[in-house]
């Protein structure tokens, strides 16, 4: 043994003392507290303490588009693009992204990072937008109602339609001038789809066709619901026989009670990660977005039989839309991307992989053409849920448009459900 001081022992003594010794007498504490309080007057504290509203009252962005920067950062949802050569982490190289890089020379970072509208807004972009910083994204893809909210907050750049010739020429009429963005001033759709139920037929042991199946006690602990408030409430409104678009506060309260009763059966309230849970076999049936199930079927295990249905009570109709957040660093390149994906050939390439409705004219026809050689593509071209017929659409509803006060009330109700 050396002559060094025995640190180890010192530490242990200190530990012992730390637990047994009085640190500050109470009198000391009061004394210091008094000094502290005296030096800060109440008025000065309160003056310094309001949180600025996030809403932008004046436009922040440039009125003219800058030069192309040679770089673009795109945030999108998983399973939403053809991804030949996609690596395990969700970064896409190859397929449409590679074609875009080849065609334009723009270095493209496409990340499948959006799991849930609220979560992405709150965690990834909110703080930057609120403090006038770039979000780090040039394109974000958000569901219709979130686009409305972002426009309301002044968080989206106005688009330069003159830089989007493909878009203005090829967009389907049904997607022009949507309710959430008059005249498409701030957004153009990426894809549209339906919310229904996805399930593993081998696990459930029977066909699923109704929202009631999500309430079947036989599936206790194997049921997935959505953390997207609007999706989940719409389902309950269908179950209650109410048109979601006209739902009142009382309806929401009742729907909340129903959801709370259902909760003991529910395994989780998921964002896009429901796909992960379904693939892992953790949930047997879950609310699901129409196109995802096709992608999951491609990778399903031998003992899985994944399916998607539109419940007989009804399903949700929505669109996800590309928009440019204010102060985006490469807005010109973002326009180039939007324009590129509205090329019908490119849109066909994407749609053949993602199995969601393309807002681009002629895509369905081109897929049907490919269907002559590929039976799968023929199926896609005919799929009534990808290209919803009037009949199917009649059995769907969009989300109710909520003003911020109403949204807060709904959110309070919904928190009681998802936060247990």
């Amino acid at each position, binding site marked *: 043994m050396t002559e060094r001081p025995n640190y180890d022992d010192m530490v242990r003594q200190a530990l012992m003392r730390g637990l047994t010794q009085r640190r500050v007498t109470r009198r000391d504490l009061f004394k210091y507290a008094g000094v502290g309080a005296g030096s800060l007057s109440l008025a000065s504290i309160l003056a310094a303490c309001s949180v600025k509203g996030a809403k932008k009252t004046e436009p922040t962005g440039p009125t003219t588009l800058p030069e192309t920067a040679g770089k673009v950062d795109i945030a999108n949802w998983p399973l939403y693009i053809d991804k030949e050569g996609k690596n395990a982490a969700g970064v896409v190289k190859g397929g449409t992204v590679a074609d875009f890089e080849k065609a334009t020379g723009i270095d493209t970072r496409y990340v499948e990072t959006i799991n849930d509208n609220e979560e992405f807004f*709150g965690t990834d972009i909110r703080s930057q937008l609120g403090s006038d910083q770039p979000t780090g994204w040039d394109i974000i893809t958000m569901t219709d109602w979130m686009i409305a909210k972002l426009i309301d907050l002044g968080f989206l750049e106005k688009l330069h339609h003159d830089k989007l010739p493909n878009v203005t020429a090829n967009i389907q009429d049904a997607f022009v001038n949507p309710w959430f963005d008059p005249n498409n001033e701030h957004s153009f759709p990426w894809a549209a789809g339906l919310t229904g139920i996805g399930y593993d037929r081998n696990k459930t042991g029977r066909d699923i066709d109704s929202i009631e199946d999500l309430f079947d006690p036989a599936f206790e602990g194997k049921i997935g619901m959505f953390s997207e408030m609007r999706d989940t409430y719409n389902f309950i409104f269908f179950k209650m026989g109410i048109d979601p678009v006209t739902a009142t506060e009382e309806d929401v309260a009742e729907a909340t009670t129903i959801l709370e009763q259902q909760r003991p059966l529910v395994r989780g309230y998921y964002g896009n990660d429901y796909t992960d849970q379904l693939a892992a076999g*953790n949930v047997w049936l879950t609310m699901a977005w129409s196109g995802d199930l096709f992608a999951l079927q491609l990778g399903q295990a031998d003992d899985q039989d994944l399916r998607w249905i539109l419940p007989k009570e009804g399903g949700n109709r929505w669109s996800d839309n590309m928009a440019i957040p204010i102060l985006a660093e490469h807005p010109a390149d973002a326009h180039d991307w939007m324009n590129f994906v509205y090329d019908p050939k490119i849109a066909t390439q994407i749609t053949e992989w993602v199995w969601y409705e393309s807002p681009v004219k002629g895509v369905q026809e081109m897929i049907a053409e490919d269907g002559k050689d590929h039976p799968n593509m023929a199926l896609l071209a005919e799929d009534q849920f990808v290209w919803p017929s009037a009949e199917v659409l009649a059995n769907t509803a969009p989300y109710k448009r909520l003003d911020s006060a109403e949204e807060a009330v709904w959110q309070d109700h919904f928190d009681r459900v998802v*936060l247990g």
Partner: protein
Amino acid sequence: MAVVAPTVAQPSAQPPARRSPRVRWIAYLLLAPGLGWLFLFWLWPSIQMFITSLQTGTYAEGYTFTGNVGIYRDVLAAYPEQLFRSLVYALIVTVACLAIGYPLAYAIAMRAGRWKNAILFMVILPFFVSYIIRTLSWKFILADDGIFLGTLKSIGLLPDDAQIVNTTSAVLGGLIYNFLPFMVLPLFVSLDKIDPSLLEAAGDLYSNKRSTFLRVTLPLSLPGLLAGSLLTFIPVAGDFINAELLGNPNTTMLGNVIQVQMLEHNDYPTGAAISFILMAAILIGVFVYAKLLGTEELTG
């Protein structure tokens, strides 16, 4: 990790008195930058959080101070189960860690001989891997069709719907796993310093292993037990990762509510109020605990 460290107080021997004002001036100079940092970024935010909790407004329009104390009542009415769970889970996990950690620490300190250091090192080793990855690894191991349950199911030992992940047990299991070393290390430190001759003497006196343990070993290890319990209880009560990754909607803790309110809904007053309640609950818990064990000095 925010945990109570055990070595906070002063040594009984005061530092050498240095009366010259110049030297004292140096002491303040040494303190200033670090304490300044803590004032700016610990104390001030804590005060700010309290002020924020009394504001009203919306994210879009901003939040202004209205002295809305009622929010505390509202929040307690809205999330009583989560508060209850945070505290009860923390209690269960602390007790479980103690039950597992005490024999382990005892075995290492008393029985490991020359392997003592090596075994202690083994206990710390897994914790080089980051917290999130460790927790995800449990989620993977315990998945319904995963390597553990899947195997048991395929040989027919378990029914098809057996599950562990997304249950209360999984959350508690994850917490116990993640915080076990917080219990073991302080216990080891205090057990290891017990002089074996004391135990021999006790053996001669009581000539009974059980009495020796209860009358000598246990009391002497009490500081470690107390420190370990706090080190476990406090971070567990504030945890949300385990409930998020391994839990279900019926296992959410206060931490999950804070995370959602602050980050997803941008409802800062609500998030701040809940944070304050969590902090108060923990301080009260620590105080009661110290009272029960008769060490009221702990909280000063």
